[in-house]
């Protein structure tokens, strides 16, 4: 493969594929669905050129399962889909979380529910990424807002996934997936690539799910001298099923703990505009681009407005959102759904700051004038 490097002009979904390959992904299994299909098409073209495998599975259930299988065999793996396909992946997403198999799932959101407006953008899957799968579980979800960031966060998604032995979801949308923009692709040597922990115990003493103080297991790939048992049933440190209540409790608590204790490493946000503005817009993904334009326009109008852009959706940036709530006189949450993140922000609103949920679900982008009129309305009141 002729790896692009330096300044490039490409589509978001294209940047995602190059980033995945740069991060070390060598297996993709997926089922085509708009607006993610370019990722499949480009993987079909490029993965064989780096001795990887692209596989078009029979459905998204199988895609997610194949991704888990390939990763368990030691090959960094990923898939991409959109809302309806993402729903089909939920069962095995839970399986990957519980069995601690690293993998990356890209959800290029479209308008929904159901097949709705399949070619139009939406942000209706924010809560699905958090609570879509069954059982009590932690999850890492990243949300890019530019082609550059789509590249960067894809690399980061693989790194976090390998570091914490857990699936990482890239939650993007039709606009970011399809738009073409310039970006800079770094030299491979300049990229930080993290690979999963390798066992250090003797083969006889090895237990794949035994962890040290960091709560992170060292699960060897299938085929190594370390025999690995991966079970979607409740399992102890040996990986074999074990249905004791204390085993179940210990496992699920550890799964949460390994993420919770690393919040600072995982959570990213971007502040845009003056930090002490009167009004704070909270947005993510494509809509945060609208919001940035609004912050610039507001400044020209002499209005004190800033933006808190959510980059890590889950775990939720509680601390940063609280800061916004404490500091601003009002908060506008702009999103292409009926207030999924606004509700999450309300959860943190101990300062009783007025929160205005600005929504759009017609498959069209929230445009700057829409947010601006809301700001003017809020400022008047």
């Amino acid at each position: 493969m002729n790896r692009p490097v330096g300044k490039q002009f490409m589509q978001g979904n294209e940047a995602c594929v190059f980033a995945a390959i740069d991060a070390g992904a060598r297996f993709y299994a997926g089922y085509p669905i708009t607006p993610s299909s370019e990722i499949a098409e480009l993987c079909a073209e490029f993965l064989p050129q780096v001795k990887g495998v692209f596989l078009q599975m029979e459905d998204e259930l199988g895609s997610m399962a194949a991704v888990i299988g390939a990763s368990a065999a030691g090959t960094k793996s990923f898939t991409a889909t959109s809302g309806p396909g993402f729903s089909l992946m939920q069962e095995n997403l839970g399986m990957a979380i519980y069995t601690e198999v690293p993998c990356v799932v890209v959800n290029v959101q479209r308008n929904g529910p159901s097949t709705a407006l399949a070619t139009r953008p939406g942000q209706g899957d924010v809560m699905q990424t958090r609570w879509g799968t069954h059982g009590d579980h932690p999850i890492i979800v990243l949300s890019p807002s530019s082609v550059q960031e789509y590249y960067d966060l894809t690399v980061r998604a693989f790194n976090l996934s390998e570091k914490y032995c857990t699936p990482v979801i890239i939650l993007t949308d039709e606009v970011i997936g399809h738009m073409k923009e310039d970006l800079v692709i770094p030299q491979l040597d300049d990229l930080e690539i993290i690979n999963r922990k390798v066992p250090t115990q003797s083969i006889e003493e090895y237990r794949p799910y035994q962890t040290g103080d960091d709560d992170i297991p060292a699960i060897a790939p299938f085929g190594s001298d370390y025999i690995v048992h991966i079970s979607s049933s409740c399992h102890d440190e040996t990986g074999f099923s074990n249905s004791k209540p204390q085993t179940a409790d210990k496992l699920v608590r550890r799964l949460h703990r390994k993420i919770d204790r690393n919040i600072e490493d995982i959570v990213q946000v971007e502040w845009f505009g003056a930090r002490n503005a009167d009004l704070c817009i909270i947005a993510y993904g494509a809509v945060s681009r609208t919001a940035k334009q609004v912050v610039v326009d507001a400044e020209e109008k002499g209005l004190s407005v800033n933006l808190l852009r959510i980059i890590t959706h889950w775990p939720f940036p509680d601390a940063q959102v609280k800061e916004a709530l404490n500091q601003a006189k009002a908060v506008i949450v702009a999103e292409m759904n009926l207030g999924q993140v606004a509700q999450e922000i309300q959860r943190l609103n101990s300062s009783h700051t007025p929160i205005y949920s600005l929504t759009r679900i017609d498959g069209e982008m929230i445009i700057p004038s829409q947010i601006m009129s809301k700001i003017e309305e809020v400022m008047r009141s």
Partner: protein
Amino acid sequence: MKKKQWQFILAGTGGQGLILAGAVLAKAAISEAKKVIQTSSYGAQSRGGFSQAEVIISDGEIYFMKCDKPNFILALSQAAYDKYKDNVTSECIILYDHDTVISNKRMNDKGYSFNQRAIELGNSKVINSVALGAILKLCPILENESVIRKLKEELPEKVVPLNLEAFEVGYREVTP
């Protein structure tokens, strides 16, 4: 006329090469160290005949990625013209195909026989290159050379001369 940010909408029907024209415009702008965003129509919408490319070219950072205030619209079909005629400012230029579009005669409407000229040049497919020439004439925010260079890079070698000729025709014949 120098602007900080230009929003171009190239709209028409599938097969007119508008996505490619948008890409040429975008890549030419990149080569001039400008910031660029290109978006296109997708899926069933594009299969149904309607095709559209949006290009934003700016000297600085581009935040909002859609053409909410277009400066320039190329309308190569009636549907494309009708979609925008009432939704743009009076300053926005709409350059329409004289052969297929009935104009409302807005102040900044400009008609040109794109289809006819492309056919006369020997291939209706060069309509997008004629259009690129016309765009550059009316919006001289890019150097002709950088557009010509990208045309050479993006097109199959054997069709380059005809497209360059088409570009020249569009540039020469459309008047501000």
